[in-house]
């Protein structure tokens, strides 16, 4: 962390300076993303090998949501993702790496974006996921045994997208999620853990996939989410923390699932997201003036899509993919 970063760390909000972008720079973003795709010998590409399949999903999804997917090399990407499959049925981030639920979901999502799901072996993927469910309903992320509510979303989403949700024990999975539900309305990583917006998204999304959203107090959760909006308009992930574009997605998508998107100030929100764009290189950063990256780019774009923007594809709040590519795989929601 730089000194400037450290200074910001201690504060609880940011000031939006003048001269920051005030509208969506859609075409710049596609250039930014395509550069990541092209530069395979670059430092960042190589050093991010341990999360590459997730990175591919972020990039492909950003291109799909900005209606520019055709600019990507579909065949090459699909071949690469398929090459990350391991003998246990799951997918790693890159060949040679172990399978993990995070990357297995991203692999499935990427294959759907490129309309290539038929090239994957659905049954072996579902078997892989099923084996990671524990007696108490929780899921391990991989063979290491680490448990986290993020992995519950990964599991339910993966099996739903493959049309085989019932292979999992949904009752125990939901019971585990509810044990992670806090009295402030949020969810944490495990029972007793502090509420965190990313975790709320995972749990609310998983409950929506299971058709069990009514098990929580809709308005109490929406309220906790609404209080994530800072004076700058940006959303933080936990109380008294700095706003960050990626939380725009986790918070807004959760509110959208709960049908309470109007609980926050939408125009202030958009202003903050626009301000996080880099008007030279393209892409979004976590906060105005920071370095852009594909992770914040896709979530910035997806968040804007939730508010409706004709230059973007409509995004599905549960799966963070275009409604168009999901088609009949969407969960029926109000």
């Amino acid at each position: 962390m730089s000194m400037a970063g450290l200074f910001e760390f201690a504060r609880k909000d940011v000031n939006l300076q003048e001269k920051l972008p005030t509208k969506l720079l859609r075409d710049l973003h596609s250039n930014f993303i395509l550069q990541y795709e092209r530069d395979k010998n670059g430092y960042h590409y190589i050093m991010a090998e341990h999360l590459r399949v997730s990175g591919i999903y972020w990039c492909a999804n950003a291109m799909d949501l900005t209606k520019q997917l055709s600019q990507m090399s579909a065949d090459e990407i699909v071949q690469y993702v398929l090459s990350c499959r391991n003998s246990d049925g799951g997918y790693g981030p890159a060949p040679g790496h172990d399978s993990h639920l995070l990357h297995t979901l991203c692999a499935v999502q990427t294959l759907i974006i490129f309309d290539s799901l038929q090239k994957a072996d659905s049954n072996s993927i579902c078997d892989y996921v099923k084996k990671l469910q524990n007696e108490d309903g929780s899921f391990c992320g991989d063979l290491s045994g680490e448990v986290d509510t993020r992995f519950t979303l990964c599991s339910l989403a993966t099996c739903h997208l493959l049309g085989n949700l019932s292979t999992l024990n949904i009752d125990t999975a939901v019971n585990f999620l509810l044990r992670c539900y806090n009295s402030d309305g949020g969810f944490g990583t495990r029972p007793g853990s502090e509420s965190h917006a990313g975790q709320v998204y995972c749990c609310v999304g998983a409950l929506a996939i299971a058709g069990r959203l009514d098990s929580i107090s809709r308005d109490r959760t929406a309220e906790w989410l609404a209080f994530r909006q800072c004076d700058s308009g940006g959303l933080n992930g936990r109380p008294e923390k700095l706003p960050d574009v990626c939380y725009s997605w986790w918070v807004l998508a959760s509110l959208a699932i709960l049908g309470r998107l109007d609980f926050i100030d939408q125009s202030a929100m958009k202003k903050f997201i626009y301000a996080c764009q880099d008007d030279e290189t393209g892409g979004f950063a976590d906060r105005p003036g920071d370095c852009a990256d594909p992770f914040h780019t896709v979530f910035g774009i997806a968040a804007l899509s939730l508010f409706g923007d004709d230059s973007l594809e409509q995004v599905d709040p549960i799966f963070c993919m275009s409604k168009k590519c999901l088609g009949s795989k969407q969960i029926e929601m109000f």
Partner: protein
Amino acid sequence: MHFVKKVPTTEEEKAAKAKVQFKRSQQFLHARDRIVSKRDKGEFDDEMLSLTQAILEKNPDIYTFWNIRRTTIEQRIEANQKIQESDIGEEEKTKSAQKLESFLSGELYLSYECIKSNPKSYSAWYQRTWILERQTTPDFKKELEMCKQALMMDCRNFHCWDHCRIVAKMAKKTKQEELEFSNALIEHNPSNYSAWHYRSVALENIHYDKKTGSLKLDDSLIASELEKVMTVFYMDAEDQSAWTYTRWLLENGNGKEFLRPESATPVELITASFHGNNTTLVFSRAVTIPFLLTFVDTEDTSRWRAFSSTSPNPSSSRVWQYLSDSPLRVVISKDSDENVIWSNLETPFINKSRLETIYDIHEVPQPEYIRNLLENVQILVEDEKKDEKTKNKWPLYMKTLILMEYQPIRSHEEIISNLKLLAEDLDPKRAELYKSILSRQKLNHSIREQFERILGTDSDQLVVRYAELTSLEGVEFLAGLVGNADFQGNQLKEIHRIVLPNVHNLTISENPIERLQPSPSLSHLTFLAIAGTQISSIDAVMPCFQTIPSLDRLIFCETPLVEKTEELRKQLPGVRLIPHWL
């Protein structure tokens, strides 16, 4: 990338950086290839440990390499196990055990170094848990001390808090010790949401009643906790941590449960009623079909329909219908397996006391500590009023929440005006949130006035007119009792989230509605009034009307839709259309 400032760089600097990066990436690729090839050959040796260590020290997120280390470590644990079980001399055995222990300590040290450089690495934190679980005599005291030091540096690191919880559990720390742990950190920095959360969880664990599944803190405990937290909001009235903890305390103090997350409350049947073509069951919280079946005399799972404000086809809900022309027999009381009371539903079953709690029909007794808290919050509200520069919502919001919990009837007017002040002036960003709370307060107020009539058998009407309702969340508890609903003159924007599946007559005139979305809950309507709404096109209504075959009369006076009357007549041949007041 988080917290990485963009800094201007010259071409020269860029070139130099690229050179360094190229070298680093080549080194990484070389080491990675070596690790993967050794793994594939099954060589989990010292070289493997040093190769993975060198990379993980720079990037602890490469979980595959931690997996490889764990395989290596497991092999050593097994080897030691074999030595311990063999006939070798004691000295050799001790030596082997000591070697393993010091090796495991070394692994803890590696994870410590990784956490120091990247305190948010999931993998590095997980490695600590994994090692502690495998040490014969783990030093929990040292571990908790390490956690404390880390939290002094970043009091919000949730990885560290989670680790603390795990270690405390492994060390079989008493809950009292956990409270003391939170004390130390709160004293260090009172504005610490994480520490207060940790404290609330520890208290919940101490006072959780395993039999009833509920939590009850006694008055003296709540009072002393309030004393503790009040000093914090006096120090910084904008700090959310203290307010959240206060709210948790005051909600725990009263018997009302509906505002709290529902996972904590036991399920109760609220109403059971027969409606000619269905039996409707309403529960205090969402249930699934297997649970339902324990309440009824059928094992049929196919005729149940659930209703929700978020989805057209939920698997769990508070409101269920069983579709059949004859009523179900329903268990209306169950103390134990022997003592079960059934009802044929000749008259509806109504859990009146529970409904009274849900809709604030009576106020709950106000303990001394609440009076004290109200006084203190009032002082802060006054302070805020004096200071014209800042707009701090918390004192007024907290006061309003206390009033809603303890004085919802006698302070109704004040609650409404406070919520309006919050929405319009103190915190307009969240205006719709406050309006939804106001909406619920007004809904309760109106239901209170009609309560006896709604519960009686003469009328199935619910009338909540001109009450600024933006939401009908909460009305679902009346799903078995209301057939005729009139919400004229409110601020409702959508009707498909209304969970009143037995409604046949619905008036939603004079609401800012632009479109009617289909909803299974409204499929029995015979009468619908949408006069004075903003609905303007056939497309905005037909998808909904197509799901209501029973619709008989439609009043749509004073809407732009009046101009489309003829077209609508063609689409809805059997419906009596009323475009003008008589």
